């Protein structure tokens, strides 16, 4: 299935969960926040949330800022 992650479309295996995605991307689950189709998905639901074709995912972190 195709997912758009931070504006870029990539292919992933069907049935992937958010936790699976975070792991596949090599990210630290505690240090990021995730939005799926404009809605925040709480960390407690990452393991059970399965992604669907065409989902738009934003993965953000804290960076330096004023």
């Amino acid at each position, binding site marked *: 299935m195709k997912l758009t992650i931070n504006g870029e479309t990539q292919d992933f295996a069907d049935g992937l969960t958010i936790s699976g995605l975070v792991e596949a991307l090599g990210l630290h689950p505690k240090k990021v926040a995730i939005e799926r189709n404009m809605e925040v998905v709480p960390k407690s639901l990452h393991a059970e949330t399965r992604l669907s074709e065409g989902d738009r995912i934003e993965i953000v*972190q804290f960076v330096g800022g004023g």
Partner: protein
Amino acid sequence: MEDTPLIIADRTLKSRLIIGTGKYESYEQNARALEASGAEMITVAVRRVNLTDPDQPMLVDHIDPEKYIFLPNTAGCFTGEDAVRTLRLAREAGGWDLVKLEVLSDPKHLYPDMEETLRAAKLLIKEGFQVMVYCSDDPVYAKKLEEAGCCAIMPLGAPIGSGLGIQNPVNIRLIIEEAKVPVIVDAGVGTASDAAVAMELGCDGVLMNTAIAEAKDPIRMASAMKHAVIAGREAYLAGRMPKKRYADPSSPLGGLI
């Protein structure tokens, strides 16, 4: 001669200096400047992770969110909806509801869009956020933001990143006199004396980023700002002498030989 501590939304701060975490050479330098500044609260931005290089240095690896109060900002947001979306993510990333709202207008001058700022503040407060708000130095809008429920009013001293110092002390003082929540000058400080001026006006605190990050020696400037904020606060509490038009000798006139 104890001062009352700065309390923002039930959080007690010993330091009246809040610093940003942008524009430093590295997070390592940033962490050292933070240590030198004595600040307990830092502003941070929310941005996309770099997917092509997930091993890039991360802010939270250098500055411990358990040790410092992270204040997520909405820099780069131009509408209330953008701001709400960004801070929902920040709340998820960190678990904090204390945030810095800034809704800017033109990238050329980065002046806040006050109509949109007020609308965004109301949206955020409705969602349970505690909002420290970056605003123009307009006492009327400052009051409206306070009445909307903002927990700190943060007027600009001069445009963001300009380092021009407090351009409109009359307005800043008016805002302070009217406010029942902390007033923090945010943006415009260039050097230590600017921070002292803000504090002498009676501000509850000063927020700065570029003045430290773009100093030749950021660590030393961070230390200078720490002392300037303390000096300005002490001078405000002490109450300055009246200004006079003519000289007044400090040594007695009587008993001259």
